[in-house]
């Protein structure tokens, strides 16, 4: 009986989705030649897919409703057990270290460049993780700080000849300042308004960069940004790529180190308290405004530095690199990986940036996949791939 029931439900879903997607998936009108293209095969694909996916959907929803309680602490995800287990952790880390050191020498320059991009995203994800994952502030304008970093380096270099290594901390600092400037006026806003306002800020910065030609050279952007020099030496293109690779690896390690320390400190706990319950957090003596500003500033710092590296890597920037969708991709890496979880965010960023690069055909499905990932993760696994596990303490009796 239940089986029949299930089949009927799936059949209904299948018919419903065939109806729903009919005009957009099946018909394509060519208004120039005045012809209609009927793509019936799409209808069958949708019907077939919906039939099975709806079954899977209902199964997963039931499973979720049954498990109910929050139990990440007691039932740690296997990945976490491996990470925390000293037996695996050391050899694992060593293997990763060796792989990383050898990477640019084993793989082509093309691969190394892709890896550099992915690592920049890891840094951005980790930075945004402070704001969203720890402090629970949905910042949809995060890419603005990335732009601040990139433009700082490009413009400071253009006008004053400032080099990469000076621009790097400066980019971080300017990012932090921008974070505070953005954070200050939005302190009083509720979570969902915050999302829209930060989105607005991000777009304002991009639109200003696009329109203010005298300052930012408009849509044509800034070219010939120098790559980092090595103690004043000019390196070959190949050597520079390797050099940038190691630089970003070092920066990522630095980021992990700092964020890990922050997370389990008085500051980090205040962020999580703020995320969990703003009122109770204040009632515990935590200054809400200051805590939020800290999160904005410390989150934006990494975006600023990431921006400097990005500008140095691509040697060319224009506003098109800093659209709202960039913010959404970074958000996606954090959500997929696991909000608040450092290993999670690293895996999330690697997966989301590398996968589309290697599955070329997959490229055009990139954004639609990101959209699905956001919805599905929220519905089925809000903690992400690798859920954050809080630190435990041992006491002697």
């Amino acid at each position: 009986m239940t089986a029949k029931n299930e089949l009927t439900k799936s059949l209904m879903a299948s018919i419903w989705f065939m109806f729903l997607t009919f005009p957009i998936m099946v018909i394509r009108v060519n208004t120039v030649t005045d012809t209609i293209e009927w793509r019936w095969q799409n209808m069958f694909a949708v019907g077939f897919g919906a039939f099975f996916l709806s079954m899977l959907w209902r199964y997963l929803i039931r499973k979720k409703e049954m498990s109910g309680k929050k139990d990440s602490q007691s039932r740690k995800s296997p990945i976490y057990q491996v990470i925390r287990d000293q037996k695996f952790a050391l050899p694992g880390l060593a293997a990763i270290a060796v792989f990383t050191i050898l990477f640019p020498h084993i793989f082509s320059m093309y691969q190394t460049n892709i890896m550099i991009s992915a690592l920049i995203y890891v840094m951005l994800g980790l930075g945004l993780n402070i704001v969203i994952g720890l402090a629970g502030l949905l910042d949809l304008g995060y890419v603005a700080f990335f732009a601040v970093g990139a433009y700082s380096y490009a413009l400071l270099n253009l006008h004053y000849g400032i080099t990469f290594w000076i621009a790097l901390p400066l980019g971080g600092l300017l990012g932090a300042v921008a974070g505070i400037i953005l954070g200050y006026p939005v302190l009083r806003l509720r979570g969902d308004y915050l999302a829209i306002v930060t989105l607005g800020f991000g777009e304002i910065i991009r639109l200003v960069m696009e329109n203010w030609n005298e300052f930012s050279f408009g849509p044509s952007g800034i070219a010939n940004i120098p790559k980092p020099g090595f103690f004043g030496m000019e390196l070959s293109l190949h050597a520079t790529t390797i050099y940038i690779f190691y630089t970003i690896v070092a920066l990522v390690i630095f980021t992990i180190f700092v964020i890990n320390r922050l997370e389990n400190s008085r500051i980090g706990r205040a962020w999580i308290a703020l995320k969990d319950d703003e009122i109770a957090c204040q009632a515990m003596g935590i200054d809400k405004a200051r805590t939020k500003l800290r999160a904005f500033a410390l989150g934006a710092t990494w975006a600023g530095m990431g921006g400097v590296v990005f500008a140095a890597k691509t040697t060319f920037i224009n506003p098109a690199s800093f659209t709202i969708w960039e913010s959404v991709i970074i958000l996606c890496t954090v959500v997929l990986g696991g909000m608040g979880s450092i290993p999670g965010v690293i895996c999330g960023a690697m997966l989301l940036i590398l996968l589309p690069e290697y599955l070329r055909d997959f490229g055009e499905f990139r954004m639609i996949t990101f959209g699905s990932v956001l919805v599905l993760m929220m519905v089925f696994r809000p903690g992400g791939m690798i859920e954050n596990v809080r630190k435990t303490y041992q006491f002697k009796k």
Partner: protein
Amino acid sequence: MDLEYFFQLFLGGLTRGSIYALIALGYTMVYGIIQLINFAHGEIYMIGAFTGLIVSSVLTMVGMPIPAVVILAAMAAIIYSCSYGYTMEKIAYKPLRKAPRLSALISAIGMSLFLQNYVLLAQTSDFLPFPSLIPDFDFWEPYAHIITSPELVIIMTTVVVMILLTFLIKFTKIGKAMRATSQDKMMAALLGINVDKVISVTFIVGSATAAIGGILIASHIGQINFYMGFIAGIKAFVAAVLGGIGSIPGAVLGALVLGWTESFFAGYISSDYEDVFAFLFLVLILIFRPSGILGRSETQKV
């Protein structure tokens, strides 16, 4: 001052504001009921426009007379937008009713991204020309230099939709249930109101007005693409917040104020920063009067 120019800007702003109002209604109604900013609402409006274009093109090609094409295309657009709105709620929001607000918001962003790219992949990333469904009426000829017939139709349609909606909410049973649910979901459920149904109806009604807005603007501007919902959605959201989110008259008022401000700003000052201006406006309202023009300021109950 050139009075005619002023008047043109005024009516241009009114037309713009009417469109914003049609979209803003969906935001404000959904927010009123489940306190969610439905990021994907702009996409519903875009899907309405696409469905309208596809259906009207097909019908025109098979040689149907224009008035029939217009009516059928509009109906198809509304039906499809409603169906998408309904399905979206079931998939992306219903399972998250008890989840933290951040989760539902992220899900909404995902939905928006999904729908945009779904249309992009299934149709095209290019701009498509949209036929002008509303003809220039002959009898209106003498006044057409002040306000064109399509603009007139847009404004009239908005007025009619507003009246119908007010009627729906004030006097029908489902309208009462909607008001009850927006005040206290739990209490409404205890009193025997089917909250799930109310939420579905809210999404459907909001989607219908968005679809109407979608076809009207598409035929007015003459082209559409998959991205049209994003910026329009944001602006309608600004309008809803400006008026006081959750308040229906507020959404209309906010939309008109935004439409006029934009129109005058572009007409007298500069059109370069038009979009920056809308965002700036939003940021300023939220900072200085987060409850909007007609919204009540609320202290959170503890």
